[in-house]
């Protein structure tokens, strides 16, 4: 499949979709979204890229092997269990840090829950792409 229009549009779209996926990831705690959905959106970006250009280019754009990415994601999620353990809570207890909070404003929240969701994001992205790349072998 090589259509100039699709290829041209894809360059723009992929960047937007990836940005959108990060947006969905970050807002997931308060509004519809989250790691799973964001991971699916991000994988859709790579699927589109592979369809418009080629599988090799999509692989090259991902830089790491998808299985590795999925494993890293799962490990990140697992790592979010550790801070809770170290503080004497059950594993996966959410710990929060609010940076630069003031009056009426809690500041920027940084939490182990976010780390967990980022892990889910990468794991879903990696797993979907691992499947997609093997089906689409030339």
């Amino acid at each position: 499949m090589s259509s100039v229009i699709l290829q041209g549009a894809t360059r723009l779209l992929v960047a937007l979709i990836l940005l959108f996926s990060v947006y969905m990831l970050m807002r997931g705690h308060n509004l519809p979204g989250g790691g799973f959905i964001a991971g699916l959106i991000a994988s859709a970006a790579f699927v589109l890229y592979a369809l418009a250009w080629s599988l090799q280019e999509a692989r090259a754009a991902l830089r790491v092997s998808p299985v590795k990415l999925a494993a890293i994601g799962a490990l990140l999620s697992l790592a979010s269990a550790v801070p809770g353990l170290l503080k004497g809570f059950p594993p996966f207890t959410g710990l929060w840090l609010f940076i630069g909070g003031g009056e009426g404003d809690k500041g920027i929240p940084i939490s182990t829950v976010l780390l967990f969701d980022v892990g889910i994001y990468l794991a879903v992205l990696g797993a979907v792409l691992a499947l997609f790349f093997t089906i689409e072998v030339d």
Partner: protein
Amino acid sequence: MDTEVHSGDQPPTGWGERIWSLALLAFPLGVTLWLLSLIGPVREHAPLVFGVSWIPSLGVELNFLIDGLSLLFGLLVSGVGFFVALYAKFYLRGHPLIQRFFFYLFLFMLGMLGLVLAGNLITLFVFWEITTIASYLLIGFNHEKASARRSALQALLITAVGGLALLAGLLLLGMIVGSYNFVEVLAAKDKVHSHALYLPILILVLIGAFTKSAQLPFHFWLPNAMAAPTPVSAYLHSATMVKAGIYLLARMYPVLGGSEAWLLTLNIVGAVTAVIAAILAMRQTDLKLALAYTTVVALGILIMFLGSEASVAIAAAITFILVHSFYKAALFMVVGIIDHQTGTRELTALGGLGRRLPITFAIAAAAGFSMAGFPPFLGFIGKELKYEGALAIAEEPTFVAWAAVFANALMVAIAATVALRPFWGRLPEKLQSVREAPPGLWISPLVMALLGLTFGLAPALIADTLVGPAVTATMGREESVSLKLWHGINLPLVMSITTFALGALAFYLQPQIRTLLNRIANWLPANSDTQWDRGLDLFKRGAALHTRHIQHGILKHYLAAVFAVASVLLLWGLMRSGGFDMAVNWERLTVKEWAAMALVFAGSLVAICTRTPLTAICSLGGMGVGIALIFLFFGAPDVAITQLLVETLFLVLVALTLHRLPHATEVSGTGFRFVDALLAVSVGTTVSLTILAVLQQPLISPTKEYFELAAVPEAFGRNIVNVILVDFRALDTFGEVVVVLVAAVGAAALLRRKLKPSVPHGDTQEEQT
């Protein structure tokens, strides 16, 4: 005969590697010192308990308990572990996979330490399984050898089945007591003994202990485990892991011990194991195998003594654990040195090594004397105590005493065979150029042998510090133990002398005994090892048979079976509850909801009527979008988004797959379509009826309210679905992510294999690009 010699010209090791290996050795040394520092506090005060909560809702904690018993075992694990690691560093020097070896070894060490220090039934079980897996990896370390792989699998299967039985037993025990913590469990003897489930629990726990500690009829995996490199045999399969079963029974003694079933089973199984293994040991000409069988003897004796209520019998068992660990680890390492320096450990090919390997000979002699139970070695004290203990066993004193004397006599003969025979007599031509091993190899067994001698000469060193507290912890009441070399002339001494006489006779007649035993073995139709193979074959054939019928590989039939069963079960459930209420409120539906339903309906209609698969898949996608819209209208935006995304990716994946399948150009014929239609209609009807029936019930859910109330104050999130996923139920989500990961890796591996030309097994594994 397989040997495992890796010596030769090695390149000098770099600084990085040297620092790395020193750091490795620092771990067991540090643990040993830490445990030594705890001896005083634990003896004077209460046991030490510490840990973190793990799954509080299930009452599961990752916690540890250090009392006299766990301290003794912990010191054995870390102390012997330190010397074995030191030995292995020299023994496997230059081996290409030495890093992997040490990873496995330390994984085991960690598991074993966790096992003996565990303060909770679940913690104990988790570490128990870690030792099983590490043992599997270590036995199969020489993985190019089919025999090593077979032995590893055999050990894994036997000990893992025992582990499952143990898990069931521990869970039952925890349920009865109402807690998994040892502090509460160990205090609940009366409650457990009077419970109807006492016997099942006892049987399950005993299966776990007997498989791990190689008791009859599960003994055969241990000699086979000698396929592992010698440091592993010295460590796992003599000093530590196989004693996990002993530890378990000693740990459970206060709560499970003392009943008639406990006493009789332990006495009989232990005695029979000790006697039969001692006879089997006489047959062996491979030094390592002979030692392996005497390990089974020792384990049998230990089990036998735990089947007693007399403190002197328990003291005998505890002392013997120490004695055995010292001499057996030393002898294994000596055999390793012989193997390393001569290239063989076959008794018939060895002789006259005393002059060539003087230091090794001295170590072997010291360890052998301890094994045979000669004064002034610790082995003598251990043996005297054993005889005293045997006579004190209330159930079957004569039986146990005879078994102990018989097994010990043969141990004397085997000690002499292993420790003396390779060093005596004429040096064979082939071994003229043999030289003494480097100090790195003999320092560890030397320390082990010296410990046996030191503690024999000064038994007071361990009587109050290690043995006494361990006996106290095992019995669950205050006990003091006095260890002495000279007890005066009494019955145990007479039994000792009888043992030496019988042992000397057995040693003198050993060639004749071996011939006789070999003749008997040839005459027997099968031994347990071949029976194992037969059993495994039968199991595999059964698995193949049922796989052929159930897992036939036709995807369509799988789906048909799943749908048919699901709809039948749903229908059955509906009829039982009698809910066929079709109250549907059509007037409440708005235009947009009608539109979404029309989309769903149109999508399914096109999918049914079309003759090309691609169109069918696309129209199903349209139907999915309609369903996503319905989710959206009814206040589940997260589910709607997920549905939409999954639908999109699914469509792309299936379209691509269809593109690659040559025969997927048309859908199935009319006959199949009729069956499919029937199935589809029945699934659709039952699912619709079920949902309508569910809607008739008022939705009362305390969890929903809880999450609505707790989401913002406790987890700082307003999206309840996501808060549940990443915070309240994070462990479940993590499990799901792992499943996704495993599924992707598995599918990727399967698909990739299909697309590549298969490589014949055993050939080069390099992939062609």
